[in-house]
């Protein structure tokens, strides 16, 4: 894969005349950026603005890719809800992007991706037969099927139990390696494990937070990771208060 582009985001977002945030963020190409901040500060709004989705507000600023090309068609998206279509089988869900673009789906590649996320045995099952973790793995396979250089993850693991969440974090880090990833999360542990760069958002600005020297994904019991996580949590609690 060629080096994926980074993204520069700078500007002010207003809702009903009130400033929601004023942020200047750089997402380095080929790296994971984790975006944290209290609820309602506009983390998901940044993601939606870059994806060119409806936000219900007015944005004044610029969103550019570091390679100068447009961002349309180069970002895939995974939300908190798995958004699997209940009436389709797992493999049909993985291929849905191709169908929605009127293309012939490559089911061989979809099956390979399902094998990669450990769902080979559930290829033709309906989503309602899968557990929460399996559903998110299917959603991850669907995200990979899009084969885009940039991937946006909006709290995709937040509804999972702790063990499944840790498994999913490692799987996502492995399969999305080398892509430009923006992960919106509330979880300091998740951010310190996965991020090359952590950004903490507030209404006033977006500040970088120092990450451990080691490369992600970091081990849960790594001393530096734990220390970073504790400091980050304390900082987040200070912000919330």
């Amino acid at each position: 894969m060629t080096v994926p582009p980074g993204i520069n985001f700078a500007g002010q977002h207003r809702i009903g005349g009130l400033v929601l945030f004023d942020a200047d963020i750089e997402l380095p190409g080929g790296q994971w950026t984790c975006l944290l901040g209290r609820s309602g500060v506009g983390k998901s709004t940044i993601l939606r603005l870059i994806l060119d989705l409806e936000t219900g507000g007015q944005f004044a600023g610029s969103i550019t890719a570091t390679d100068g090309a447009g961002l349309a068609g180069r970002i895939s998206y995974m939300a908190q809800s798995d958004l699997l279509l209940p009436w389709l089988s797992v493999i049909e869900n993985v291929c849905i992007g191709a169908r929605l673009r009127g293309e012939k789906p490559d089911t061989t590649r979809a099956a390979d991706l399902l094998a990669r996320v450990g769902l080979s045995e559930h290829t033709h099952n309906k989503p309602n037969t899968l557990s929460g973790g399996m559903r998110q793995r299917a959603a991850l396979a669907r995200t990979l099927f899009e084969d885009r250089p940039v991937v946006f993850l909006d709290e995709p693991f937040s509804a999972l139990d702790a063990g499944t969440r840790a498994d999913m974090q490692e799987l996502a880090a492995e399969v999305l390696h080398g892509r430009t990833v923006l992960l919106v999360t509330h979880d300091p542990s998740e951010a310190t494990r996965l991020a090359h760069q952590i950004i903490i958002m507030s209404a006033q600005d977006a500040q970088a937070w120092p990450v451990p020297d080691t490369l992600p994904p970091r081990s849960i019991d790594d001393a530096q990771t734990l220390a970073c996580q504790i400091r980050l949590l304390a900082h987040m609690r200070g912000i919330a208060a």
Partner: protein
Amino acid sequence: MRGRDILIAVLVGLALWQTTVLLTDAPHFILPSPWRVAQAAFHSRAIIAENAWVTTVEVLLGLTLGTVLGAATAIHLALSKTAERLMLPLLVFTQAVPVFALAPLLTLWFGYGMGSKIVMTVIIIYFPVASAFHDGLTRIDRGYHDLSVSMGAGKYHFMRHVRIPSALPSLGTGLRLSAVYAPIGAVIGEWVGASKGLGYLMLLANGRAKIDLMFASLIVLACLTVALHIAVGRLADWLSDYARGVRHP
């Protein structure tokens, strides 16, 4: 609705009817007993069956055409904001006109045959189907919409692969309503002007003081409506189950 429940309801209804006949001592040309009606139904089974067939065809054709037109309208409105803005108020306004009042006009335009009854049925069920399905098509999960936009979906493909399947339970709701309204449309059409059908037979029997035959026709009509309600209910359940991924198509 289970078979046992239906049987109990029928028996209770017959018991109430027979009790009323006994208590009021009404003459048979005012309120015939269930047994007398059963006898009339048996003796006139050929003429009842012939007219019931006509009404059934009118109802089924009206239901099918009305559903196709209503669903097509709903899809068109959901695809085009302009069409939605212009046509939706018009559709609601047309519902302010009592459809039954149109029956004489429809008979004038489409004749005394099946045509006017089918059109009447179509008009009656068109709005419930269009309205319920349109509601389902426009109340789509925002997440599906966002995901589709990020995938570069075309609006027609998004409609076909996401919006229509997710709105099938709403279409089922519209169909359930239609199953109740459709026989009303056909029978009212027959009352206004027809030479066949259960509505026609009821009027004919009433005019000749054959109240037992009128009751027999009425009961056959009720049975047809219940059968239609059950069949359409099963179809609606299947649509809902399909959308939830419970059963295979």
